[in-house]
């Protein structure tokens, strides 16, 4: 299978790999996918007092497209407010990475990961 240059770039030089302390009140963690399906993404956002996402980290179990999708969204969410980040669409991810139809689910998973991370952060703040 031929991958787009952007997928290869993110796979070979993944941005923002790593983890934050998931118990930190400023951190929202999203864990989506399932090992049995061959894709698991963990996306974490660190949100400043002003509601802006200061930093983001990911770890992904999956194919090159899944790794690239999650690496890409860590770049995209940085500097955005959590409301803005929530508007990132899987179609934008798929388009940017030129994902083939069989890999669209990777971009869907990345969108879900952002939403899950935001939800986790909001839950922590509400308590």
């Amino acid at each position: 299978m031929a991958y787009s240059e952007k997928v290869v770039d993110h796979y070979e030089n993944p941005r923002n790999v790593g983890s934050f302390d998931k118990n930190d009140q400023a951190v929202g963690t999203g864990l989506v996918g399932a090992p049995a399906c061959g894709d698991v993404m963990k996306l974490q956002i660190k949100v400043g007092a002003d509601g802006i996402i200061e930093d983001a980290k990911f770890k992904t179990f999956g194919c090159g497209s899944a790794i690239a999708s999650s690496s890409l969204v860590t770049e995209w969410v940085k500097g955005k407010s959590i409301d803005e980040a929530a508007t990132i669409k899987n179609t934008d991810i798929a388009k940017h990475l030129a994902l083939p139809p069989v890999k669209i689910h990777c971009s869907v998973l990345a969108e879900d990961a952002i939403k899950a991370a935001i939800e986790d952060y909001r839950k922590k703040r509400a308590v």
Partner: protein
Amino acid sequence: MNDIATDRPNAPQRPVYLDYQATTPMDKRVLDAMMPYFVEKFGNPHSRNHEYGWEAEEAVENARKQIAELIGADEREIVFTSGATESNNLAIAGVAHFYKDQKDHIVTVVTEHKCVLDTCRHLEQEGFKVTYLPVKTDGLIDLAQLEAAITDKTAIVSVMAANNEIGVIQKLAEIGAICRKKGAFFHTDCAQAFGKIPLDVEAMKIDLMSISGHKIYGPKGIGALYVRRRPRVRLQALIHGGGQERGMRSGTLPTPLCVGLGKAAEIAKNEMAQENARLMALRDRFLKTVNGKLPEVFLNGDLDNRLPGNLNLSFAYVEGEGLMMGIKDLCVSSGSACTSASLEPSYVLRALGVEEELAHTSLRIGFGRFTTEAEVDYAADRIVQAVSKLRAMSPLWEMAQEGIDIKSIQWAAH
């Protein structure tokens, strides 16, 4: 694939080929044997009345003998086909159709190649009954279960000799004895086994055997079916025409391809023992390096009852396709869903009871005649490097290191 390994000074010029269960390069000795039969000795082997026909016929008959000798058969029991897929179709559908008035049952195994399973599915649609035997966790069938499955309505039992994904070798002699005792024909798909392990149609009581050319350093587009003469196995042909191959497979024989398969069989017969010893040493060397440097690597299928050149390994917490992308300079294949359109992981691994999450992390690594020790070392190092890198970015590996049981998490299937 033009940018491969340019950043690694010791990397080979072309990707290292470790996919010998998919296909093999032709042995140059095979090509040399074939060459005269394209332009110079181009005759139709079925032309009975001139020199060109006679020399082509002699070459084809010599090839038939070379193939027969490798499996302890008579050359009159060898039918040339286009490959093992056709041989499997001809054996199973041919026997089923010929004996349909007396028998309507077929026994096969869930880990068979798709061309056996798909042929059986078609026969089911025609009204035949098929029993698909499960395999144990080592990949072998349960012989008692086989014996219990065969009835007086069973026309044919089809059990592959060596599996294409996990290389596991079934107990052919025992299976043959059971089939003979119960009065069912024993067909075995030997696409992966012919030329690789000793096979004897008498000792193993094999009635039909499918053979492939391109898995044994011969040409693509040629195979054969061994069809026992005593006691005689009868077949209904799939391809009709001039009645070549004693009516079982019409069509002009491709002389150069037949010669190539024969030569490949002859080389395999002469070199099998030393080649297998070499391949097992390479395999053990590879395993030693990988197991020495990586924890949680699991071998799928039994190690002892296995093709010498085959490994199928699960690298826990690293997805197979993602891993293959990190080792672009190695040609291997993956049991991961992502390498196929179906998004389902390998049905063979699933049949062994390998859990889906581990099936997604598997690689099939095949060593062969032209694999060098340097290539094996290079491949082992590259795989260790790529797995380590991907584990460092795997959320599952992280959880495992933190002592979290991945099975305790409520995952959302997608």
